[in-house]
């Protein structure tokens, strides 16, 4: 009877703990686990302000250029067959980012087979860099089932990026996020610059290119706050080189005007606009090509 009582109380105690922690996304403040989560979170501020820098996915970045009449050119991409040739965590994480962008590019142009090939390359390099490959398995099944559907393939590509970010954020691997994102952003810039080809003042894509300054700056800030090793410093240097070129663009500012209509809709007008001239364009194109070559070489 005593044995039964002991087991009963052990069960009751455990169920109480488990039930309490699982209740409607609420955790106890006293729980040391919860304290650890809160302490390790970026963007959490109590005494001093720290900011979580968010990044649009490579698919979202390329989507903007896609509407600027870009043509599909597979020669711009890094072959997924190269995935096994990258040795060392720096090369693997940077090229994981490169492949994520190449997957997004293939998805945008509804190239189903290529999208699946790149997703498989992403999954393979993820495993090498300590990211759970299971987060991509359902996406692989969906990408095969949704062959030729632009919205579905694009969503799958964006989901692959956000699933990976979530996995890394949960594990507190901010430096890996910075490395992967740097590879992805450099590849996005490379594809955009090569697709534009030569400079033409009235090319609408130049404005979109200038807008890349914002996500690059956010990524640079994210990378700076996550710096831990020499590999991260190399990446920061890449980003600083690119950011410096963006900072040299001609700026025109107008006062920011915020208005709110009776239905509550807020309009924000004015602010800073950047203008890219031919010299800026050539410098940026050459610098990005040089950095990208260093990343994809093996």
């Amino acid at each position, binding site marked *: 009877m005593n044995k039964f009582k002991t087991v009963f109380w052990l069960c009751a105690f455990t169920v109480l703990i488990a039930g309490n922690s699982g209740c409607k996304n609420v955790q*106890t403040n006293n729980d040391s686990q919860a304290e650890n989560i809160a302490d390790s979170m970026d963007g959490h501020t109590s005494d001093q302000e720290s900011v979580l820098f968010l990044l649009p996915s490579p698919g979202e970045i390329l989507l903007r250029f896609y509407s600027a009449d870009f043509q599909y050119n597979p020669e711009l991409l890094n072959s997924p067959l190269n995935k096994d040739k990258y040795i060392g965590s720096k090369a693997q994480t940077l090229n994981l980012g490169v492949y994520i962008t190449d997957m997004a590019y293939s998805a945008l142009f509804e190239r189903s087979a290529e999208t699946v090939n790149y997703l498989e390359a992403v999954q393979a390099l993820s495993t090498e860099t300590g990211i759970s490959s299971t987060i991509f398995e359902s996406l692989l099944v969906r990408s095969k089932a949704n062959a030729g559907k632009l919205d579905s393939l694009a969503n799958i590509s964006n989901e692959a990026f956000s699933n990976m970010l*979530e996995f890394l954020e949960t594990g507190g691997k901010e430096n890996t996020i910075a490395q992967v994102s740097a590879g992805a952003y450099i590849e996005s810039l490379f594809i955009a610059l090569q697709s534009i080809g030569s400079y033409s003042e009235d090319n609408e894509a130049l404005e979109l290119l200038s807008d890349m300054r914002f996500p690059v700056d956010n990524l640079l800030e994210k990378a700076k706050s996550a710096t831990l090793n020499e590999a991260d410093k190399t990446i920061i240097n890449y980003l600083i080189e690119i950011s410096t070129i963006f900072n040299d663009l001609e700026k025109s500012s107008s006062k920011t005007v915020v208005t709110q209509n009776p239905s509550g809709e807020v309009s924000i007008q004015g602010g800073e606009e950047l203008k890219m001239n031919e010299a800026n364009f050539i410098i940026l194109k050459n610098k990005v090509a040089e950095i990208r070559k260093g990343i994809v070489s093996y």
Partner: protein
Amino acid sequence: MKKLSYILVFVFLAIFSNIEVFSQSCNKFHLYGSCMQYPGPSYKMDGQSRSNVIGVGDKLVYSVIFYGDRNYKLIFCTTDLFKPVHYILSDGVTREVIFDSEKNDFTEIVELNIETTRRIMIEISVLATNAEEELTEDYFGCVGFLLHWKPLKK
């Protein structure tokens, strides 16, 4: 033998309870609950949508990129116990306040028409006005925001 069986039962239960504790997370909180509302036709979800753990008295600050010539719909949500959400949108450079939900009846939805690409800071806190202080002092919850966008009509 008795001792061994007690130990085994305890270890099993301890592991079981820990699985529950460790699986507790706010990942994708913005993809369900009150954040997940139909934004209207033509809207696409923005990948910068986020969720995080929060307690009363905490402030989360995000730096978000908003592209020009777009209309954005932002939907904020939190665990019931912590409602309402208080959020402030401010200019990423000047930090001038663009929108303060406190001055707008703590609305959980705001629409922004963005003319030129800019960085906007989103500060989020939870007030838990209807919860007892003892409860909110002892618990963490989830908060999230979902961003949708569509091309701005000119």
